């Protein structure tokens, strides 16, 4: 009877079992690599701060995530869409995914970096403003980070 009702009303509510599973996934992802969520966030910000020194990245669409196949296979996957400087509407010229473990993907990122480098060389005046702002912001974040991290134990 309950299952019939469930079927009729389409089980709108997600059970707490699913919530438990999601929370466990999240917690174990960090437990297994011994990197607490807070530190992982700091790391992401720092990575981004370095990248924006060299590349105009569409910050809205940046994704840096931990992925885990099982308890011994984790990887950090970053998707960093690059903004094409020639197009002021901030449409990304290319989406580059740099996967920490895969050399192939990292190479793609390098290629893209070269491409953007060429672009900026061709139009130096246009490129100036955006990266500067980005670097400034990044530097500020970086300061916060160092203060925060000095109080914390480094991951063993």
């Amino acid at each position, binding site marked *: 009877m*309950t*299952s019939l009702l469930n079927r009729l009303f389409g*089980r709108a509510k*997600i*059970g*707490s*079992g*699913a919530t*438990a*599973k999601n*929370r*466990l*996934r999240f*917690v*174990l992802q960090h*437990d*297994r690599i011994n990197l607490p969520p807070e530190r992982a966030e700091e790391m992401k910000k720092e990575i981004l701060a370095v990248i924006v020194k060299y590349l105009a990245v569409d910050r809205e669409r940046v994704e840096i995530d931990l992925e885990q196949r*099982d*308890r*011994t296979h984790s990887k950090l996957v970053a998707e960093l869409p690059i903004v094409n400087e020639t197009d002021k509407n901030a449409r990304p010229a290319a989406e580059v995914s740099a996967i920490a473990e895969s050399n192939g993907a990292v190479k793609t990122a390098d290629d893209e970096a070269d491409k953007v480098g060429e672009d900026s060389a061709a139009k130096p005046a246009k490129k100036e403003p955006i990266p500067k702002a980005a670097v400034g912001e990044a530097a500020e974040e970086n300061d916060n980070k160092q203060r925060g991290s000095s109080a914390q134990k480094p991951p063993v």
Partner: protein
Amino acid sequence: MAGKVVTISSGKGGVGKTTATANLGISLASLGKRVVVIDADIGLRNLDVIMGLENRIVYDLVDIVEGRSKLRQSMIKHKKFEDLFLIPAAQTRDKMAVSPDDMVKLTDELRDDFDYVLIDSPAGIERGFRNALEPADEVVIVTNPEVSAVRDADRITGLIEAADKGPGRLIINRLKPDLVKKGEMLSSDDVYDILGLSIIGIIPEDELVLSASNSGIPVTLNTNSKAGMAFNNVARRLTGEDVPFMNLNGHRSFLQRVISLLEGR
């Protein structure tokens, strides 16, 4: 043939390690195996009461390790099974009284005379756990379908693998099929997805387990108990038998109910 040392562990306390150890001991003994169960939770002795043997204790694990009593005279024989013995934990000492090496020496001696040596590990990841882990040929990890218990199971899985004792096999204890069906409890599949450990047993929640521990007669001896049946299946799987998992689905169709009525189940 040398006996096998199986350590029952969990990380988190209160998930049913001691209950599992007692029941697996009984089940293996009823399969005709020669079994000794060791309570490694020094200072918090409990396996004796779960097995109903608390009145018979004279010597304990620390007495044996420190040479005050002979192994043979310290083991307590079960009332019902000739070939089932208990080595109780010391109640007034702490875990530092025994070392991992002591446990290896002790179990090496027991291996010659027994088919199975089951070690009930204390909760936690410190000395007591190390004592229980060191001599293990195989580790059974007990967990509940619940966030904190699964997290701790994952934690000790890492430690077990780091000690080259892995991968452990998992008992999911106290599963409530009705709640799983409503989506209000992690299912055994969920737990498997998360931990990636092979499952050696799924034990349904069963009020008879409490009655059993009240009376000191492990639930495997109660033929009406689903949990008891499930523990029996775990024991058979431990011996290498391929036993299908019980259908724990509480909701049965009308036809199924008629059939089981006719079959007298």
